[in-house]
Structure formats: C-alpha cells, structure tokens
C-alpha cells in the first residue's frame, strides 16, 4: 500500500483557491486500483449495508404485501404483488397528496433559496459587529431542535394565547383575535411553510455567505471596472462560481422539504386532517394510524423513486464530477 506510484512530478503550488477549484483531481492517484480504496470504503459500506440493507429489503417487501397490525405482530404478511401500488395510484387522494407535496416543496425551497441568498448577500454588506450578531443569531435558530421549534411556533400562533394574533390585531392588520390558523389548510400551510423556511435559512444562508466570501475580490472588481452594476455582477460573476453549491443546496432542500413530516405532525397535535397530508405524513398515517403497513411502505417507496427522478439531474452531475477523467 505504501508503494504509491508517482506518475507526475508535483505541479507548482496552486496560487489561489480558485485555481484549485478549477483544477481537476490529482493526477497521482489515477492508476492505482489496488486493495487500498476498497479497504477505505469498506467500513462505510459495511455500516450502510448492515444497518440499512435489511430494513430496505423489508421496506420493499412490505410494500408488496397485505400487512396490517395482525401481520406485523405475527411477522407474516400475505403477498399481493403490486396491489398496494395500484391501489395508491388509483386513489385520487394520493394524487392530491403528491400535488400538495410538490407545491409545498416548490414554494418552500424557492422561498428558502431566495431569502437565504438575500441574507447571505446582506451579510456581506453590513458592518462587522452586526455580521457577528446576525451569524450568531442564525446559529442559535439552527440549534433549536425541530420538535421544539414547532412547539414555539404553535405557541406563537395559538388561537387564544398566541402573540401573532394579538400583534396582528394591534398593528391594525385586521381582526385576528380568536383566529385559528389551522382551520383552513391553506393558512395552515402558510404557517408551516414559514416555519420550515425559517428553520432552513440558517444552514443555507451561512453556507452561501461563506461561499460568497471566497469569491476572489479581483473578479468582482474587474467586472465593476467594466461597468457592470451590482445585479450584473451577481449574475455574471457570482452565480456561475456558486453554481455547484446552489445545486447542492437546492437538491438537499428538495429532498428535505419533500419529506416534511415533523413540522406538520407536531404542529397539528399528531392528528392532522387529510388536508394536511404530504407524502411522509400520508405514509405515516397509513402505517401507524390505519395500520396498513404495506400501503404505507408502498407510499414511501414511491416517495424515494419520485425524489430520484426529480434529482436525477443532480445525481448525474455529481457522478460526472466524481468520475471526471483524472
């Protein structure tokens, strides 16, 4: 393992980070196909296969069985082929749920990215003390566990004791005393979207801010010398450099928001009406409320497949980056 072959003399030290970023992978490793990489990957593969292999197999096989509580307790389901899938696909509720999840994801991811980008840009323009204050605040928000965050928001939007109803009324925004935000799913989802976006902003904006800080100053300066305004600089200089990170952040956000569960489930006291079903809530409901674990599993499998399709572009891009010629 120690006899690594050096295929090339070390190149000169890269001058800047950008150059590093633009360079492809190191040349010296390309030829080796020994045992080394496999030994390195082995622990991760073992952990994934050991912890996840059997559960995934179970998940897939449950989705092909009639599997209720009785079957769960007896550990014996009845194989029904694709019946669970056909029953999902022919269920109009399911398609409403899919549409609702997609709409929620689009709005939440869009808002998250927009607001987080604006905050990241803002962070670059405020004075130093304020910058520290803002980042610390973002970190604090990030540190609040989701379950707790939901409790806080539920408390703020409470029917009788909520500060939001009181404040909106006091500010003259209308009569919100004794307003229930969760009577209509549209209003409820507005609150849930705000909560999800609020919870996601710290991670995304801190990452973006750090990324922005690494854009070479010269690039921005030279663009400005060429007469570009702030907006043009953003589009022609910043965006292209940040493209990979945007790609990651958007994909991760899609994955997370499409699976939104805790926020909805806890916000509605563990008994959401069907107007609040998203993919994960629907799957959980079918499994643990209606005890149709087969159906619930099938919904989960469909969720994963849908996500794979949606993020296909991203995954392909990632594989390309990794597999780029050395």
């Amino acid at each position, binding site marked *: *393992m*120690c006899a*690594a072959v050096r295929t090339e003399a*070390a190149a000169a030290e890269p001058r800047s*980070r950008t150059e590093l970023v633009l360079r492809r*992978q*190191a040349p*010296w*490793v390309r030829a*080796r*196909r020994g045992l*080394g*990489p496999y030994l*390195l990957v082995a622990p*991760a*593969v073992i952990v*994934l296969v050991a912890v*996840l292999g059997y*559960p995934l197999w179970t*998940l897939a096989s449950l989705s092909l069985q009639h599997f209720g509580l009785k079957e769960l307790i007896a550990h014996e389901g009845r194989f029904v082929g694709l019946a669970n899938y056909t029953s999902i696909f022919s269920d109009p509720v399911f398609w409403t749920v899919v549409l609702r999840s997609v709409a929620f994801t689009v709005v939440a991811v869009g808002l998250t990215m927009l607001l987080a980008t604006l*905050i990241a840009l803002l*962070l670059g*323009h*405020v*004075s130093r003390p*304020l910058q520290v204050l803002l980042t*610390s*605040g973002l*970190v*604090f*928000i*990030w*540190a609040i*566990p*989701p*379950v*707790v965050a939901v*409790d*806080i*928001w539920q*408390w703020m939007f409470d029917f009788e*004791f909520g*500060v939001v109803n*009181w404040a909106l009324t006091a500010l003259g925004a209308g009569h919100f005393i004794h307003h229930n935000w969760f009577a209509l799913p549209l209003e409820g989802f507005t609150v849930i979207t705000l909560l999800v976006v*609020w919870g996601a902003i710290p991670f995304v904006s*801190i990452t973006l801010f*750090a990324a922005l800080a*690494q854009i070479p100053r010269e690039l921005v300066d030279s663009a400005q010398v060429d007469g570009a*305004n702030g907006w043009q600089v953003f589009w022609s200089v910043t965006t292209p450099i940040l493209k*990979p*990170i945007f790609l990651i952040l958007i994909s*991760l956000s899609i994955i997370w928001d499409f699976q939104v569960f*805790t926020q909805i489930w806890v916000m509605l006291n563990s008994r959401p009406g069907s107007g609040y079903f998203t993919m994960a809530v629907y799957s959980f409901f079918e*499994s643990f409320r209606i005890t149709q674990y087969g159906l619930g599993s099938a919904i*989960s499998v469909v*969720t994963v497949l849908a996500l794979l399709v949606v993020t296909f572009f*991203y*995954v392909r891009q*990632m594989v390309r980056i*990794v597999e780029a010629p050395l």
Partner: protein
Amino acid sequence: MGTTGRRRGLTRRQRTRLLANLTGLLVFALLMFPAYWMVATAFKPGRDILRLTPQWFPVNATLANFIDAVGRPFFLEDARNSVVITLSALTISIVVAFLAAVAVARFGFRGRAAFVVIIIAVQMIPLTALIIPLYLLLDKVGQTDTLTGVILTYLILVLPFMVWTLRGFIINVPVELEEAAQIDGCTRFGAFMRVLFPLVAPGLVATSMFGFIQAWSEYIMAYVLLNSQEKQTLSVWLASFTTQRGTDWGPLMAGATLTAIPVVVFFLIVQRNVVTGLTAGAVKG
C-alpha cells in the same frame, strides 16, 4: 446607477452601508423573534404565560420554570444519554466517513460511481418509513431499548451527508502535500493521517456540526426504540411536557432552551471553523 454611484462614491457607499445595517437589524429582529419568544416564555411565571394579552418582556422574571424542568424525573440521565448517543454516532461517523471520503476523492476504483449514487440516494429515504424495518432488525439482535441501537440508527442518518461533504474538503487539499510527506518517508496511510487529516479538520468540524444537530434533535426513532425512561434522550424527555392534561408551556420552553444550549455552545466553540469549513467543502461540489 453605475455612473451616479461612481460620481458620489463615498456618500453612496455610506448610504448603502447604513441601509444594509438597518435592513440587517430588521432581519435579525424578525428571524430571532421565535427564539426570543421561547426564552422569554421560559422566564415567565405560569400566570403571565397564559394571558389573553401577551406580555412582551418577562416582567416578573423567574427561574421557576427551569427549576421545574430540571427537577423532572430523568433529566440528568436523559441528558447524559443524549450526549453519549450524539458523540458516539458522531465519532464513528467521522472516522468511517473520512476513510470513505478519502477513497472517493483520491482513488479511482470500480464501483465508485455506484457508491456515490447510493450515498446520495440513502438521504432520500424518509426516516419515518424505516421505523418498522429498523425496529424489526434491532429486535432480532436484541438491540431495542439500548443506546447502541439508537447509535446505529443515527449512523445512517449522518454518515451519507458526511461522506459527501468530506469528499469536497479532501479534494481541496493539494495532493502535492501528501506526496511531499511520502517522500519524507511516510507511508501512504501515514500521509493521510499526518497531512490530510489536520488540513481537513475545519471541514470535519463543519460536517460534525451538521451531524451533531441531526443526532441531538432526532425524536421519532429515539421515541420508538427507547422504552425505559432512564435510557431516553432529551428530545423524548421534552415530549413528556405535553400530556393529555395540556402542555406545560413554561417548563417546556425552559427545557427547550436548556436542550438548545449545548448545541449553541458546541457551535460557538467551532464557529470560526464552521464558516470557512462549510464553504471549502461546498464550493467544490
């Protein structure tokens, strides 16, 4: 805009800065309000919490809620469990993920693309879908109601993300440094450990921050897997504030504040590294 800007350069810059600062303050106030409300509620005595007219500041500030929360059964045990579970899952994940990330970043090998796809795809599986399958598996090996079972579960929660981000950090370290070390007589493995590991440290810290928050705040798996109260975690402990008999808002908010504090402390310690670390990994994709 560009021309006027250049003509009145300084004043304009000052005005922009002022505007930015004001906007910054506003954004800060808006974002922080829920967090503020949590802390403020935690300091209010019971009768001030449930008021039809909210009280903006804890006028009659009291520590009663904190004392109540900490005095509840199993707080210390559950806090210790949270620490043990989070740190174990994190340590194992960091080591395992680092090795895998080195392989993906530094070696070409058959099956690498497949490995990468699996790492990404694993993140798409909703944890709620795995409750039954994971429970059945852990039951077979007698690891329900044990911290080990939860630690294993959390490995799959944080490992994929870590492999992925760490790969980005490793790629940013010039390979020449490792080569230099090898010339100096290090083994290949020695080169990784002595040269690469310290250089990726900020990235490791940033990644572990993410993992820390994930594991620290996870609820549903811990709830299902852990039955004995002395084996549960803080997030499960917090859920006991909401009962059929209503929610004890004051103690809940106090308990929540206490739960969030370790994460904030962890973050403040590593903050500097996090910001630089996150980017280094991220920009590279």
